[in-house]
């Protein structure tokens, strides 16, 4: 139930953030500090999500097949592979490592 609430609530919230962007006068981001922070938020959050997703497990840090998956993703991104190849390539490597270990 609370998951439904979060799904619908955050969904509507994200829509309202889009609508606000199209509705507010552009001068609200003319302040350079606001603009910088707004630009850096996705960078910081996505980087933290990568780290936590790959290294955290039940409140502790562990190194397992997920890190090999991320390394695969890194290499695939370096050679400009498309998104789907990157994501499923990482999954495949992690799955193979689990299969053999």
């Amino acid at each position, binding site marked *: 139930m609370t998951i439904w609430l979060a799904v619908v609530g955050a969904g509507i919230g994200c*829509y309202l953030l889009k609508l606000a962007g199209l509705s507010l006068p552009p001068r609200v981001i003319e302040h350079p500090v606001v603009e910088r922070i707004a630009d850096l938020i996705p960078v910081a959050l996505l980087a933290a999500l990568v*780290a936590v997703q790959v290294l955290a497990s039940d409140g502790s840090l562990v190194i397992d097949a997920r890190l090999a998956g991320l390394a695969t993703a890194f290499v695939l991104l370096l050679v400009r592979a498309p998104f789907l190849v990157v994501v499923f390539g990482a999954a495949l490597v992690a799955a193979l490592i689990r299969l053999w270990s």
Partner: protein
Amino acid sequence: MIRDSLGVGIATGLYGTSFGAVAVASGLSVAQTCTLSLVMFTGASQFAMIGVLAAGGTPLASALTALLLGSRNTLYGLRVGPLLEFRGGRRVAAAQLLIDESTAMSLNRPDRTLARVGFVATGLSIFVLWNLFTFIGAVAGEALGDPETYGLDAAVGAAFLALLWPRLSDSVNRIVALTAAAVALALVPYTPAGLPVLAAGGVALLFGLLSKHEDATEFPEAGR
């Protein structure tokens, strides 16, 4: 130009399969997964939400992370709003299509009509395909069973890295990214799941206040 938009739509829509598959692997139902793609419809926020939930974070923490990431669409709207000049009902409808790709495909167009065509053609084709492929991915993911066997948990980290990648060409962004990752990891043992990622948002705040980095605004490249 419409062909370009459709190309971006197909490429982006297809990766809805990966979202659908990892969302059910994270414990969401097919209905919840499809609702996210329909209502939230912004990839990074959707992946963030399921990532935090999969890590054991509370629904509230997952919602806050999704909203923080969704704030970047406000920024896009402020940029393309004066260009598109949608009013009334059209604006209410167009707002849902405001994402990285539609922004990229409407900026730098020679006139308003072409900007609108780029925005709507890209946004609509992604909306239709993203939702269709989310459903296909979710149903397939549910049929697969245990996500760890297929490495789907590793796929989420890869998805975040792919979303972050275009922003890493900037050196200040790289420093912010590494600092944020370090802060989040340091907090993992001491805070409930979900909080380390939100706290890492503070790194953005700090760097934004302290650095004198000029014009950090990047718009996503279309056609990934």
